[in-house]
């Protein structure tokens, strides 16, 4: 098929006008490049297409058509050169124009922080929840039944010494806090700020039948002089699992999962050292492997049969384990806080570090 010369020339003309106006309209490098590809692209540019059309023109008309084609091509290329120069200039001019400096800091919302102890508690709770432990709570002001008696700490036990506890100065408090005590569950009698969160275990077991799988945490109180590692008020977290066939191997395994979860890493091991707590037997101190050595985690043991009996469980039917950890100690080690008194000074510069 032969293309009439007039038609070819008209196409050439149209393309030329279109291209020139497109180049002059291109405002920036990006747009210019798009236009260049469209008209002068080496593969699919429209000039390339027309060049193929040249082949269809009658042989006699070819010199005219060819000449005209070259002219148009030159004009389009000139338009590209002109536009390139223009875009470059306009870009140079824009250096003086006000524009976004994206390196300027954004406007921040003032965010508050959770106390580091809360953060630690929440993490511990999360981990224990994954291991199937449900959070339980209990009162901080306790009677002697829940803080001592039910926990196998009888009246003549040194742990009940007034100097070791914060007894409340209420009517009915016997000076010295020893001798016969009212064991009536829920009765007032002598009150004190609880010295351990194990009280919660008693309260839960008193109203729940086994199995029991709880974690309790909260404030506890002991008359220690405040120093870098002691404070008369601190936080404890305690786990309790009572069911049929619960053994010390379960205790060790749960503690290993817990430690591996909290401190990270698979290569965590647990070591038990014999110890003594009235409410567990056997009682152990728990260490975990840490950077080639051992660090103390807290105390643990199998729930003492007397404690199980005190809450109406049959120690021949069920057994259980309990463990308790000091949260300040864990939190301080985790964040390398060297003085736990900082936790209670509430200096916002301190709080903002976590």
């Amino acid at each position, binding site marked *: 098929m032969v293309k009439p010369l007039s038609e070819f020339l008209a196409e050439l003309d149209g393309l030329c006008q279109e291209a020139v106006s497109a180049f002059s309209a291109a405002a920036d490098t990006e747009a210019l490049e798009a236009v260049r590809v469209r008209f002068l692209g080496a593969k699919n540019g429209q000039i390339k297409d027309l060049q193929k059309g040249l082949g269809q023109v009658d042989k006699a008309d070819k010199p005219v058509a060819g000449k005209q084609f070259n002219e148009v091509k030159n004009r389009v290329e000139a338009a590209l050169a002109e536009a390139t120069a223009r875009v470059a200039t306009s870009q140079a001019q824009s250096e003086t124009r006000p524009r976004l400096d994206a390196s300027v800091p954004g406007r921040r919302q003032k965010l508050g922080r*959770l106390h580091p102890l809360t953060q630690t508690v929440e993490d511990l709770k999360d981990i224990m929840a994954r291991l199937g432990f*449900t959070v339980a709570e209990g009162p901080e002001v306790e009677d002697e039944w829940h803080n001592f008696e039910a926990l196998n700490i009888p009246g*003549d036990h*040194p742990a009940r010494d007034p100097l070791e506890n914060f007894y409340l100065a209420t009517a009915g408090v016997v000076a010295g806090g020893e001798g016969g005590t009212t064991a009536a569950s829920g009765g007032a009698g002598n009150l004190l700020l609880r010295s351990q969160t194990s009280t919660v275990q008693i309260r839960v077991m008193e109203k729940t039948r086994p199995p029991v799988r709880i974690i309790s945490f909260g404030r506890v109180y002991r008359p220690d002089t405040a120093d870098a590692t002691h404070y008369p008020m601190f936080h404890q977290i305690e786990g309790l699992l009572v069911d049929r066939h619960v053994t010390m*191997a379960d205790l060790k395994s749960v503690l290993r999962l817990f430690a591996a979860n909290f401190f990270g890493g698979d290569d965590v091991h647990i070591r038990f050292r014999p110890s003594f707590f009235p409410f567990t037997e056997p009682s152990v101190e728990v260490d975990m492997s840490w950077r080639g050595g051992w660090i103390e985690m807290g105390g643990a043991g199998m729930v003492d049969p007397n404690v199980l009996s005190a809450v109406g469980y049959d120690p021949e039917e069920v057994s259980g384990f309990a463990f308790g950890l000091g949260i300040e100690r864990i939190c301080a080690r985790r964040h390398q806080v060297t003085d736990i008194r900082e936790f209670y000074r509430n200096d916002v510069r301190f709080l903002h570090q976590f």
Partner: protein
Amino acid sequence: MIVSWNWLKQYVPLDIPVAELERRLMMAGLNHEGTSEVDGDLAVDFEVTSNRPDCLGHLGIAREAAVLFGLPLQMPAAQVREGAARVEELVKVRIDCPDLCYRYTARLVRGVKVAPSPAWLASRLQTVGLAPVNNVVDISNYVLMECGQPLHTFDFGRLKQGEIVVRRPRPNETIEAIDHKTYALGPEMCLIADARDAVAIGGVMGGASTEISTRTRDVLVEAAEFAPLSIRNTARLLNLHSDSSYRFERKIDPEGVDWASRRCCELILELCGGELAAGVVDVGRQPPARAPVVLRFSQLKRILGIDIDPQRVREILAALGNQETAADQKQVTVVPPSWRRDLTREIDLVEEVARIHGYEQIPEDVRVPMAPSIRSREDRVLGQVRQVLTACGFDEAMTLSVVDEPLSAAFSPWSDQPALQSQTPIRGADRLRRSVVPSLLAARRTNQSLSNPEIELFEIAKVYLPRPGQLPVEDVVISLNSSRPFEFVKGVVESLLESLHVAGRLDAAPAGCELLDPEQSCRLLLDGKLLGFLGSVRGPALRQFELRGETLVAELRFAVLAEAANLVPRYEPLPLYPAVSRDLNFVVSESVRWADVARTVQATAGAYFESLTYLDTYRDPQRLGEGKKSLLMTLGLRWKQGTLTSQEADRVRDEIVSACQREHGAQLRA
């Protein structure tokens, strides 16, 4: 308990480095506290838990070591050569208070020569931290440190009528102890007296009048058993804690009393000469017989999770001094040794076997059954509250649960009952707080004194609201303080409600709190229920707390929020038709409250009501007149059935205008 390494090896042939002993004992229950060198000997410090008083002497620790290393224990025989005279003809002992002193034994050595101790004895005592006095006193201390039984030696010649009476003190009775301080004795203390005067504070410290001196010729050796609780109270009341009281408090070996007495006399005869009167005066109760304890081998697996060979179990128990009385394939019956008063139950034997067998035998990788855990509603609400408050710029503080009296009195909106009091102050404060607001204001002051620029604090904690005759109510409150204005803090409360999808209506009523500016405060009611208090702290209170600048406080009851929270909101179809908004500007008297106007607007808009947004309050006496204010708001209207036309919206607006005029005297301002 400080142990002399050389001394220990007298009883058990340890041929190991001391570090190995420390490690093995630690893994068996005696924590190693430290080791130091003393004149060619080692002083090894072990922590002895309160259930193991048998380890408060070298023999006790040696016994543990012997069991752990499988070595024999060499007990001194404590055999004495007695003279002709009978002791009961020379010494009279009477116990008048058998509840304070269970048993009292006395032996008498006559014609001793009191002198400095030989070097070996002085050296033993120095290693364990005791200063040598003279041979007789040093021997009694030596035996104490050897077996854990405290002893006392009296200058018999100074005991009036050669008599010992164990009794309670007379009114106002005092004693000069061997530390040459005079102690006033309380009515429940156990006193050792002669026929007339106090000569020792039983089990705690001897008296100066009968102490052993170079003039002493005859020595009465006391070995007794005192009631632990009485000793503890006496030591505490007198603030007089001795090696002796420490051991009596923790219960001594009742069958070791006579051994210790003989051992002491044996050494006196050997080192100080003299003649021992025959026999012993032994008054009071004899040691009760020990009941046998059965250990079922199946219990080891049930409690420890591992099997231990019954033969091994029996060996361990026997090595620890338990006397086996019966055994078969299922169980073993033993009578625990007198020095192990802590062994009375099967579980006690389980622990003994476990700690000697070694806890490292217990695996740490058993499969613990899975169980679901439930996150409580309170816990979820708490998490949300913390999130909102930190997003609003508040830092979480943690303050002590007790405050001092002025702080306690400063703010108590939840209770009129006097605050509970601790007998012992905690960091100088003894009132259990009834509000967290004062504690947080104190924390604010701390920060101001540190020149911290931005102080926005919150705390979620318990308050302790007294109830006569019962445990107090422990309510959790959300407390905060801020330097930002009233409407900001109120906005925080509203954001909290919004985030918890609380549907109830929030109302404000006069606060009526001394701490808060009556013009700049309110109590917050959620559907009529008291949610909390919010307001600006008054000038005088700011001065009391030494605070600068306007200070807003708020305290909310967590339980009310938790109850009202809607944690699982229900889906509502999104509206199909567009909303129309109308701005309103009402001029009203100062006494007209926004809440009342808003209620009228909503009621009048009826089914078309979508939203009402408060914009501002504007006052200008010239333009609006005295005592007037204008309330600016935007009303959003929407019809569920179709597009609300502009005319219809205007009609609703006009109805609202007339209703507000009618009910609140409001004038629409163009």
